[in-house]
Structure formats: structure tokens, C-alpha cells
């Protein structure tokens, strides 16, 4: 159920990126898609009654092994969030430049290339 809703979030983003006419909306769609994937990865690693994968002196190693949530997806998601930030920054820069050139964010008017 949780997975399914997360997938729905992803699909909403995909819908936005594929159908919207405004370049900023398209970028927002890309960001929502990326949120969906990130959340899915972290959901994969969750353990019921889990604890964060950070050791301190109070907890024993065996208990930690049995109870900590999966650290690997979390590390992957840190990477993926930052990659998403990078791509979005570049996309925003392109949007600003497109606005400067065409005077609009509307993609139906940004259409000099054929086909």
C-alpha cells in the first residue's frame, strides 16, 4: 500500500512532465518524479521498529545489526538527491535563458525547430 502510493506520486510527476505546456511546470514534474524514486528507495530499506543506522556507545553491535534500517538505500538517496539538485539547477538556468530568448514559458510558442 505504501509502495503503491509512492508509485502514484512518481506517476503524477511523469504525467506533469509529459503533458504540461509550461517549461517550469515540466521541471516541477521532473522534481516530483525524482521524489517518488527517492522515497521508494528509502521505503525499501525500512525495518519495522527500526532504528537509524547510526551507532552510539549504548547499543550493542548484535542488537544494532538486528534492528537498524538498511543504510545502503539511504546512501544512494543522498547521492540521488544531490544529482537531482544539479539537474534541476541546470534546467532552471535553461528556463531563464529560454524566457530571455522567447519571452514566454509556454512551450507551444518555443518551437523554432521543426519535427
Amino acid at each position: 500500500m505504501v509502495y503503491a502510493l509512492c508509485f502514484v506520486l512518481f506517476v503524477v510527476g511523469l504525467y506533469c512532465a509529459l503533458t504540461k505546456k509550461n517549461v517550469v511546470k515540466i521541471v516541477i514534474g521532473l522534481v516530483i518524479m525524482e521524489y517518488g524514486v527517492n522515497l521508494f528507495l528509502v521505503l525499501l530499506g525500512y525495518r519495522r521498529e527500526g532504528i537509524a543506522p547510526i551507532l552510539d556507545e549504548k547499543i550493542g553491535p548484535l542488537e544494532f545489526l538486528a534492528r537498524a534500517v538498511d543504510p545502503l538505500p539511504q546512501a544512494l538517496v543522498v547521492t540521488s538527491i544531490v544529482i537531482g539538485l544539479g539537474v534541476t539547477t541546470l534546467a532552471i538556468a535553461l528556463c531563464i535563458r529560454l524566457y530571455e530568448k522567447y519571452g514566454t514559458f509556454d512551450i507551444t510558442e518555443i518551437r523554432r525547430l521543426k519535427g
Partner: protein
Amino acid sequence: MVVEIYLLILLVFMIAGALIAVETKNLLSSVISLGAIGFGMSIAFLFLRAPDLAIVQIAVEVVLLVFLIRATIGRDVIPAHGHINWAGLAVVLVLMAGLVFFGVRAFGSLGVFGEPVIASIAEAPSNAYLAGGLEQTGSANIVTSVLLDYRAYDTLGEATVLFASILGALAVLRGRSWAKKRGKEQ
């Protein structure tokens, strides 16, 4: 179980936010709804026992919102006219419906939420990280030890993506693109 219920509520909230962000006419409200989804993500990460991610997400979200607002503020509102391409929309909607249908069916084989794959596969790398991370890398935060020791090469790649995108943004936004002597445009 409680966590699952909280998460479901949060997810419904986030999907609603996403729908508002997608459908609203005003760009600024759209960007702000995106911010709401991002903060929802951050809270979800806290529920999922991922404090590192919650910090990264909230910080990145702030920066992203500042950038997006700078890009959109004072710029145009979506033109109301313009016909909708119904055929294209129908194709996309059918595609989405199919995707959701198959996706949800496939998730049946993921196992119950709350029982990660590492619980059933003893030799998965994650178990090795949890068991030996402190001893092998000396870092108490296992996520950091994965990020900067076991998989440090990924982190190099990620820093490089950020570098490339910032350099790319600077290159895209430079004032004059063509050298003067052959100036074709500008």
C-alpha cells in the same frame, strides 16, 4: 504499524500537493506546493529512520525553492488559451493507468512493508556494512561510512554531477556566447 499509518497520511498529503502543483494556474503556487511536498518528504524520512536524508532533503529543498522562485517570480502566468491535444492526453493517461496497474501488481512480490530485503538475505552487503562498518571504517554513522568509504567513488561521481551542472548553468547563462570577430548573432 503506527509508522505505516503516519506514512500513508503523509503520502496522501504529498500526492494532493503534487496534484495542486501540477494543475494550478499560478506558477508561484505551483512552486510553493512543490516545497510542501519536499517538506513532506523530509518528515517521511524522519519516520523512516533516515535523519541524514531528512537534513539533506530539507536543506536542498530550501535552496531549490529559492532558485525556482527567483526563476519564476514576475514572469508570465500561463496563457489560458491554446487548445488541448486530446489524443495525446488520452495516450498519456492510458499509459499512466497501465503503469500504475502493472506497478501495483509487481509490488505484491516485494514482500511486506517493514521487512527489508536485507532481513532475508544474510550475505547482502548492507548486513556487512551494519556489522563491520564501525570497525572497518571507524565511522559511527554507517550511512557516512557507506557514502565516503565503501562507495566513495559514487560520491565522487555525485560531486562531479553537481560541478558539471553548476558549470553548465554558468555556461548557459553567460552574457555573450560568440566571439566578436565572427559574431553571427549577438
